[in-house]
């Protein structure tokens, strides 16, 4: 049955010339699980919000959106609130009240249900989502993943027929992402709720969704099944092909038609293509090693670092020793709450270890005066770039920083111009930092950090909430920095990003560095904590780390013709 019928939808934000959504037509059947996919800023959020008039942005709209045959703006506010649920990106911002139980009840209170009904529905939902254990807790004690589950649950208590989700997992760590998506799958399969989801984590969504929509520049370019996506994207020659999961990418490089959508399927396909013993397995040693510049002092040297936030608290960093050579890209990976960010803040001098030594460029950190430390030695980009912006526009923000860092106005100007060119910030200079997209914010913040021309650059989750195209751009910036002899150290959940672009990687677990090696060797040594491409190729091409590697190996072995 048709639940939503969208015909000829156009939308323009106030004061803009082009259309932000143009001529979108689409029919959504009851029980569909639809993935909306595209670059950030392609109009996904704008589109989703059109389906929920209560929060639709101001602007000019034309075309029709019918919900069960009624124009959506003519639905009563009550129906709109209860039948169409909306979950957005930031888990923190959606939580209204201070207790979990109250948050769950919020929507039903608005709808005016009596205590008995609310009690029943809240209990049902809490059981469905498995949140009875934290039912009475204050929300600020929850983890990010739990918060997003809470947001989902507090929309679900209103028993919506359609659920709209705008990049709900972009702020979560991988484990929380899987948990959240598994919950969505249950909602779709067990409760029959129609789902429209915009997402960057294709690898996990493709197997559970029923249709994929691809958007670019406010247009709907594709409306296909998950298995058709790979070949269709290839035909489109879109730069977002980059974002496809390894299983799709590898298959689509050789064959047309329906692609595998899970690691298992891709592995099966690969093993049918090739006999068990490949001709020339590329062992890790065959690859050229990254030159290690041992002659210089290491950029960072940690000697038995111990750190905890408070005297009585638990240790977060437990005796970490490591050396990071100058001029390399170094990634620290690991799960949530293992102390990665804390370790980075210790390297950056934000937190002082209570035992052990931090040496930067051969000098003990406490001996470097503050003036020098953050003026040319360390540049630190925190997880939330917004915590750096002070001024109303990106331009004034940079100016402020430049004049504070260089007493000489001319040097400051010059430095600013260089940074602006480097990050292509010209068009953004007049904008308010909060009006930028996630990727643009990341760049503006990084620009601010790099103004002082630091030699060691520390980045906390720089790829969080950024689309594949932007990630590639970021990696190019990192390479340029490396060529300039800078050391870039980043902490990330993003295994694929680290595997592709880092020189060295380290795995952190429970406050300790468990393993550390050149990237390729590092991931070859892991069997689970590694890229999808590597998992597909395992046992077939031992050397394949990225999908490009595997594709190349396949070419060598003449698969697909």
């Amino acid at each position: 049955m048709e639940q939503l019928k969208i015909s000829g939808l156009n939308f323009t934000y106030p004061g803009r010339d082009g259309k932000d959504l143009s001529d979108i037509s689409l029919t959504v059947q009851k029980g569909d699980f639809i993935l909306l996919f595209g670059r950030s800023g392609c109009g996904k959020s704008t589109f989703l919000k059109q389906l929920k008039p209560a929060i639709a942005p101001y602007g000019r709209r034309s075309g029709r959106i019918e919900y069960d045959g009624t124009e959506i703006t003519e639905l009563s506010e009550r129906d709109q609130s209860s039948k169409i649920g909306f979950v957005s990106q930031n888990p923190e911002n959606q939580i209204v009240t201070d207790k979990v139980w109250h948050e769950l009840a919020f929507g039903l209170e608005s709808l005016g249900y009596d205590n008995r009904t609310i009690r029943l529905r809240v209990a049902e939902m809490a059981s469905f989502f498995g949140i009875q254990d934290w039912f009475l807790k204050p929300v600020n004690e929850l983890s990010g993943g739990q918060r997003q589950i809470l947001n989902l649950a507090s929309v679900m208590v209103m028993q919506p027929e359609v659920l709209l989700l705008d990049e709900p997992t972009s702020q979560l760590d991988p484990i929380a992402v899987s948990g959240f998506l598994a919950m969505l799958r249950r909602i779709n399969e067990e409760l029959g709720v129609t789902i429209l989801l915009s997402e960057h984590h294709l690898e996990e969504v493709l197997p559970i969704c029923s249709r994929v929509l691809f958007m670019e520049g406010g247009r709907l370019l594709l409306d296909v099944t998950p298995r058709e996506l790979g070949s269709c994207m290839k035909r489109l020659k879109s730069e977002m092909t980059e974002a496809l999961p390894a299983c799709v990418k590898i298959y689509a490089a050789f064959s047309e038609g329906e692609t595998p959508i899970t690691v298992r399927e891709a592995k099966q396909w690969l093993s049918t293509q090739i006999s068990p013993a490949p001709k020339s397995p590329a062992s890790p040693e065959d690859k050229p090693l990254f030159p290690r510049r041992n002659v210089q002092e290491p950029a960072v040297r940690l000697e038995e670092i111990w750190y905890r936030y408070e005297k009585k608290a638990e240790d977060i960093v437990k005796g970490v020793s490591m050396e990071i050579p100058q001029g390399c890209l170094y990634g620290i990976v690991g799960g949530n709450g293992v102390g990665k960010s804390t370790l980075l803040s210790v390297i950056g001098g934000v937190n002082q270890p209570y035992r052990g030594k931090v040496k930067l460029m051969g000098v003990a950190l406490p001996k470097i005066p503050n003036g020098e430390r953050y003026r040319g030695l360390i540049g630190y980009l925190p997880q939330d770039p917004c915590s750096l912006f002070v001024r109303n526009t990106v331009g004034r923000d940079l100016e402020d920083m430049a004049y504070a860092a260089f007493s000489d106005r001319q040097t400051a100007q010059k430095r600013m111009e260089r940074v602006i060119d480097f990050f292509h910030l010209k068009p953004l200079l007049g904008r308010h930092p909060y009006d930028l997209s996630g990727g643009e914010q990341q760049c503006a913040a990084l620009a601010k950090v790099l103004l002082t021309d630091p030699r060691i650059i520390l980045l906390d989750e720089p790829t969080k909430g950024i689309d594949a195209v932007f990630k590639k751009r970021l990696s190019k910036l990192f390479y340029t920095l490396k060529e300039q002899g800078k050391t870039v150290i980043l902490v990330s959940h993003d295994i694929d990003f680290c595997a592709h672009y880092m020189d060295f990687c380290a795995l952190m677990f429970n406050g300790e560095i468990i393993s550390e090696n050149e990237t390729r060797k590092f991931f070859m040594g892991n069997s689970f904590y590694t890229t999808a491409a590597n998992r597909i190729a395992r046992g077939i091409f031992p050397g394949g780390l990225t999908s490009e590697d595997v594709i190349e190996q396949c070419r060598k072995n003449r698969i697909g013709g």
Partner: protein
Amino acid sequence: MSKKPDRRLIFSVVLIFLAIPLTIAFGMSVLHDRRYYFVSVAILIYTMLPFLLSFEHRRPKAREVILICSLSAISVIGRAAFFMIPEFKPVAAIVIIAGICLGPESGFLVGALSGFVSNFFFGQGAWTPWQMFSFGIIGFLAGFLHQRGILNENRAVLCVFGGLSTFVIYGGLMNLSSALTVSPGFGQDVFWATFLAGIPFDLVHAASTVIFLLFIAKPMTERLIRIRVKYGLMEDKDSSAQ
């Protein structure tokens, strides 16, 4: 719509002609030495009720509600951040800015809510209604004077108003409350001694308000105005798209 003002009118009439005289009568006849204390607490609460109830009855918009809460939370955080210096708190400054940018009603609410919630962290006590009322009235007054064109974003005027209102209204009322707990009425030496003992603290508080206004008035007003413009807050076009 005609029903609402009626209800409010009835409420005020009941309050002025029934509740207040009854309260005074009860205090005078039963409470003897505690009558002033009792009557002043009661009147304080009666004065706050119309503000709170009229806000409640006009069913405020989500954005209005969250804005008031955000500002209150900021002032609570501010109070917590400077807790080691007694009476050095930015609450009054933030409340004044709220009153100016968002109007007298919101000013009152930010003040009263800050008072109540901050005591939730520092401990409720007999002082809670006094603090809620004092901060609330300061916010209300700031908004009211701004509407009349007397108080503008000029920093000097703002600081003078901030210092005076903190010293006279907040200081005066809080000292009155402590004086009334330890003395049987107005006028005795005990009353004045207690009242005057608070003045050094009031001076610190007034100075802190001036300092905070001096530094945060401009950035904060800028930001509030941006939000108002960008999202059409506090205006009626809040409801639906198109």
